[in-house]
């Protein structure tokens, strides 16, 4: 009778590659050298882009944006594990995922440059727009997952969010609905240890995000988020399970926000520099480069070449971005409804008339 143990739960962590780039052969995912090079190229491009965007922002040529420095392995490795037909439901710190999923990079800049057209992704891309309200979008992934299952499509949904997002009620509802409906969804938390100025330890008293899956009867796993192979491996397995009708998974990618929260933030106000130094040693890009050097997949020439290609692409992207025409004022009114309402038509006409007068 007395006190009985009802259940035991284990939470595990996966690492595939150590700091020096040595990998665990048993866990190493099956990636061709070309794929590894591609991954590396995307990570380099993402980092170059991030730096250039910062410059543009400082010069007033781009608006406030969320940098991804240090989180490349997490959100690129995860997106790389997706297959054709899978959906991506992002937050706002997944620039690299957009690149992986084929979103024209100039669109990303256009968006952060203050133009909604930056989120008019190519038809069929199955990538949702940036979601600014923290924690809200994971529910959409559940609904999309439900729809895919109902349509008997063998695809899965990857949704990405931060550690701060796990505090919102909508995170909870999304996890619960996903588990109850066995939605083919993978919940990837980029635990970068900060939500603006709030450190992980003030966000939750739980030792890991991964263990939060237990509350929903869902598998949860932590992964070294700066180890692109581990992230790829874990997310790929989770997406496979989702596609196979085995339900959702929570993946916690342990990573770190190396930059300020956004270009409006100054992390020196609240963050100890030692912490950044610790994570600097765990830099995901360097780690992958070490692996590749070991395997003979990278030498100085190829490194320089990759960098040059990235730079050229960034140049192209910035030029394309700056060539976008400003959206016309009546765009304000055109996309509220499939058909413009009489009130909106009147308001648009009044604005255009006033602008005409102004000329």
């Amino acid at each position, binding site marked *: 009778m007395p006190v009985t143990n009802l259940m035991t739960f284990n939470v595990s962590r996966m690492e595939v590659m150590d700091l020096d780039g040595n990998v665990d052969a048993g866990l190493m995912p099956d990636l061709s050298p070309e794929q590894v090079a591609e991954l590396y190229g995307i990570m380099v491009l993402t980092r170059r882009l991030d730096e250039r965007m910062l410059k543009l922002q400082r010069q007033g040529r781009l608006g406030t944006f969320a940098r991804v420095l240090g989180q490349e392995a997490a959100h690129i490795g995860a997106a790389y594990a997706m297959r054709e037909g899978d959906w991506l439901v992002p937050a706002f710190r997944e620039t690299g995922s957009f690149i992986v999923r084929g979103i024209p990079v100039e669109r990303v800049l256009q968006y952060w440059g203050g133009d909604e057209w930056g*989120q008019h992704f190519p038809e069929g891309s199955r990538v949702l727009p940036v979601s600014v309200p923290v924690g809200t979008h994971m529910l959409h992934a559940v609904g999309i997952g439900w729809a895919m299952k109902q349509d008997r499509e063998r695809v899965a949904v990857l949704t990405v969010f931060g550690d701060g997002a796990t505090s919102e009620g909508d995170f909870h509802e999304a996890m619960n609905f996903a588990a109850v409906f066995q939605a083919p969804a993978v919940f990837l938390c980029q635990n970068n240890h900060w939500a603006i100025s709030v450190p992980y330890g003030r966000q939750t008293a739980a030792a890991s995000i991964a263990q939060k899956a237990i509350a929903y009867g869902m598998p949860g796993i932590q992964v070294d988020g700066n180890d692109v192979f581990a992230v790829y491996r874990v997310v790929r397995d989770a997406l496979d399970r989702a596609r196979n009708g085995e339900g959702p998974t929570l993946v916690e990618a342990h990573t770190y926000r190396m930059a300020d929260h956004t270009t409006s933030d100054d992390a020196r106000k609240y963050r100890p520099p030692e912490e950044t130094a610790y994570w600097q040693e765990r830099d995901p890009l360097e780690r992958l480069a070490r692996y590749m050097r070991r395997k003979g997949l990278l030498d100085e020439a190829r490194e320089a070449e990759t960098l040059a290609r990235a730079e050229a692409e960034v140049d192209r992207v910035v030029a394309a971005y700056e060539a976008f025409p400003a959206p016309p004022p009546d765009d304000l009114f055109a996309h509220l409804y499939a058909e413009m309402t009489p009130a909106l038509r009147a308001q648009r006409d009044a604005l255009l008339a006033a602008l005409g007068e102004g000329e």
Partner: protein
Amino acid sequence: MADLNLVEAVREGLRQELARDRKVVVLGEDVAKDGGVFRSTDGLFEQFGPERVIDTPLAESGIVGMAIGMAVAGYRPVAEIQFSGFVYPAYDQLVSHASRLRNRSRGLYACPLVVRMPYGGGIRALEHHSESMEAIFAHVPGLKVVIPSNPYDAKGLLAAAIRDPDPVIFCEPARIYRAVRMEVPDEAYEVPLGEAKVVREGVDISVIAWGALVRTARQAAEQLAQEGVCDVEVVDVRTLSPLDTGTVLASVQKTGRALVVHEASRTGGFGAEIAAQIQEQALLQLQAPVRRVAGSDVIPPLAKLEDYFQPSMNLLVNEIRATMEF
């Protein structure tokens, strides 16, 4: 034709849409086996099964948020919120996402979603079960807001809402769920969104109402006609957003007097918008101020005080008289 009350009309509307389009699904708390606490989904689970008529966990933001995802992926979810007083947890999903996905993606994604909910008082219910908060939806660009006043419109407006490519808040006046029966066509039909209707013609004053109070307004009109006081025109707004300003204004331009009636509390209620528009566009035709007959600015009370809260037929009659005598 069948003789249906409002809840039956809603149910028939849902049934026909479920049958017409496999992308239509119904979801919410207790909508499946239980058939909804007002029985508005009764029998649908048995007919269409658990993949089309879906009981959800108890979480309104979850219901609407999940429905948004379904809509993005090509479905036509009809989400039920058990009472409109429980929609607030879903307000963020409605305002921050449902209303915006089309605009945010410049038309790439849309959100054809209906959120149905029993609405308003008059049923001697517990706290939070008698709310009339249409104003907080009608103020949100990107949403549509529909409130039927009778079984015929309920069925037709619901069909139109489900087929609409944009998100629609559909408020069903619980007070008249079973109060009136009406001949309703057996076949499916649409009552177009965005069109108000003159439900009683008159020449002296326009009473503008929606939901359960349309009936009260008509009763007041009949009484005043019998008493020979005045000939009241009653406009049933039906869709608050987008508002059919044309029909409202045409009526007021004809009668020269207007009264707006709603159960929601007065301050900041949608009656203010209609009154503001009337005087903005028809000031010179107005022979009296546009008065509002509305709920008081109080918490909808429990049963013992409920009758003091809602605009009664008598109050309406008095206010119409006052406007006529201005």
